């Protein structure tokens, strides 16, 4: 167990370093983008004089390292500053949206992970049966449509008929039941998008082990196929499965901007895209760090679980 604790401590320390690197990469990439906040805010209406005046007002004339340093010292003391585009405190901008994003991710995960695992295990158990083929073809078809397109089709079927709303209008005061109802379509869209990946990895990881000598042994002992899959193959197949689940959970938090746009869901993805196109670096940085932290955290959990499930990794020579 001490291996695991040492690993967690190291990884958290590394994670903090990672966040620092991410903030540098994001700052540098945003700097490389053509234009800055002043030209983006003024858009077509920009003239040299107004741009110069706005730059001075926003403090954009300082060299990049100075601005990065100012941001970093602020962030380290917990002050992420204000959005330069409209002077709103970033904590206020992000607060409700972070909650929305996490809610949608958990909602979609709560539907997709059980479905994916069940389908994956059953497909592996009844491999090459009609069930396997149909489940596979269905899951594959679902992910071969772009997200926005899946969303449009669901809206056509389930919203235009009046069963679910076509867009999500939630406020902080919306109660849980309404939230679940209104967010059903985006969550279902995401479920369709991520299930196939997890399901296929589960199936592949289990089948990959089915020819191993110890499975052969179990089979010769006369164990039932279900028991072999659940008790013998699955535990050893957990590492890749956990990794794929972690990847997809991270995706549900960080990568759902398209679904947010289609369902007008006020999440972090839309905020990040807007901030990038405004070159509003303080907001970009804050959201990027949240995404990075979510990602690092989920991966840490995945790696810890993989290690725990594989004694050979626990006692590495």
């Amino acid at each position: 167990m001490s291996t695991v604790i040492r690993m967690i401590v190291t990884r958290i320390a590394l994670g903090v370093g990672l966040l620092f690197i991410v903030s540098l990469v994001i700052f540098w990439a945003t700097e490389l983008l053509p234009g800055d906040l002043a030209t983006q805010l003024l858009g077509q209406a920009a003239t040299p004089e107004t741009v110069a005046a706005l730059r001075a007002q926003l403090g954009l004339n300082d060299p990049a390292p100075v601005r990065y340093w100012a941001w970093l010292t602020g962030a380290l003391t917990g002050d992420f500053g204000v959005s330069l585009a409209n002077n709103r405190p970033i904590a206020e901008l992000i607060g409700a949206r972070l909650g929305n994003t996490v809610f949608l991710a958990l909602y979609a995960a709560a539907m997709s992970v059980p479905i994916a695992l069940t389908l994956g295990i059953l497909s592996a158990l009844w491999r090459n049966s009609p069930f396997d083929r149909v489940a596979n073809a269905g899951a594959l078809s679902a992910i071969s449509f772009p997200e926005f397109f899946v969303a449009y089709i669901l809206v056509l079927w389930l919203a235009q008929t009046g069963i679910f709303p076509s867009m999500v209008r939630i406020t902080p005061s919306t109660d849980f039941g309404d939230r679940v109802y209104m967010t059903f379509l985006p969550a279902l869209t995401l479920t369709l998008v991520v299930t196939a990946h997890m399901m296929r990895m589960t199936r592949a990881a289990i089948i990959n082990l089915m020819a191993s000598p110890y499975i052969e042994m179990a089979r010769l002992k006369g164990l039932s196929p279900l028991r072999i899959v659940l008790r013998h193959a699955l535990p050893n197949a957990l590492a890749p499965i956990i990794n794929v689940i972690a990847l997809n959970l991270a995706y549900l938090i960080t990568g759902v901007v398209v679904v947010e746009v289609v369902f007008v869901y006020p999440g972090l993805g839309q905020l990040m895209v807007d901030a990038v196109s405004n070159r509003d670096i303080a907001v970009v940085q804050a959201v990027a760090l949240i995404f990075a932290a979510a990602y690092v955290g989920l991966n840490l959990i995945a790696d810890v679980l993989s290690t725990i499930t594989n004694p050979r990794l626990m006692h590495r020579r």
Partner: protein
Amino acid sequence: MGVAITVILGLAGLFAIAAAGRFAARSTLRGAARRAVNDMPLTAAFGILVIVIYAVVALTAPVLAPFPEREIVGTQFEAWGAEHWLGTDRIGRDMLSRLIYGARNTVGIAFATTALAFVVGSILGIWAALTGGWLDQILSRFVDALMAIPALIFSLLLLTIFGTSVLSLILVIAAVDATRVFRLARAVAQGIVVMDYIEAAKLRGERSWFLIRREILPNAVAPLVAEFGLRFCFVFLAISSLSFLGLGIKPPTADWGSMVRENATLITFGDVTPLLPAGCIALLTVAVNFVVDWQLYRASGLKE
């Protein structure tokens, strides 16, 4: 309704041809090829048939397409008819011709991108798992840093900086995909490098490259192949999502991902036009993964 029936009949027809093809192959082939065909399920035969058809279409696009890829030959959104079998698109180009050219462009780009991502990602991933220590830490943390930035937004940043030529599109999507492959390859390889036969090979004094190539890769290939099948189709989706944000492949080049996006609003009114390119992507995805499943099954060594 008519469309649904056409689709079902079309798929049934493809299955029938695939079955006939498998039968023909079984009766003509000899040796190892014969054995491979013998245990080939019908779905795999179907997958191979579809892939062959796509390849033929892609290679002979200029011959097959009734109209040039970019020329305006009709009015906006003409209905399906004798002259334009699948109608015309929003500026009056022939839909069928664009789908045919789309096969060439889309499949070519997706294949190049996925192959590149896998070569780079899996070799680095296995190397990291094998070597461990600081190299593993540095590579893994670097990949983590890249992956921690959402793929779509990262692609958007990179493409805005480097421009949206086909080459930069391939490189950017491959770079983003390679990080995902790296992570999977490393996870799989971690389970393998602790095996006794690797220990033995290390003690024999084999070098890393030999270990990767001869000992680890063959044993890690199954999950990687499974991933390949999915990543391949994710490239279409990435291009489609990028065109949602106003990037993607430049006109007048036809590609399915952008074609779905261009016509997507029509689905709101139950019009099937955007289903055509989306269906092309879906059919290919299913076909590729059927073949992948068959290979996966063969690789697993199961003989039941």
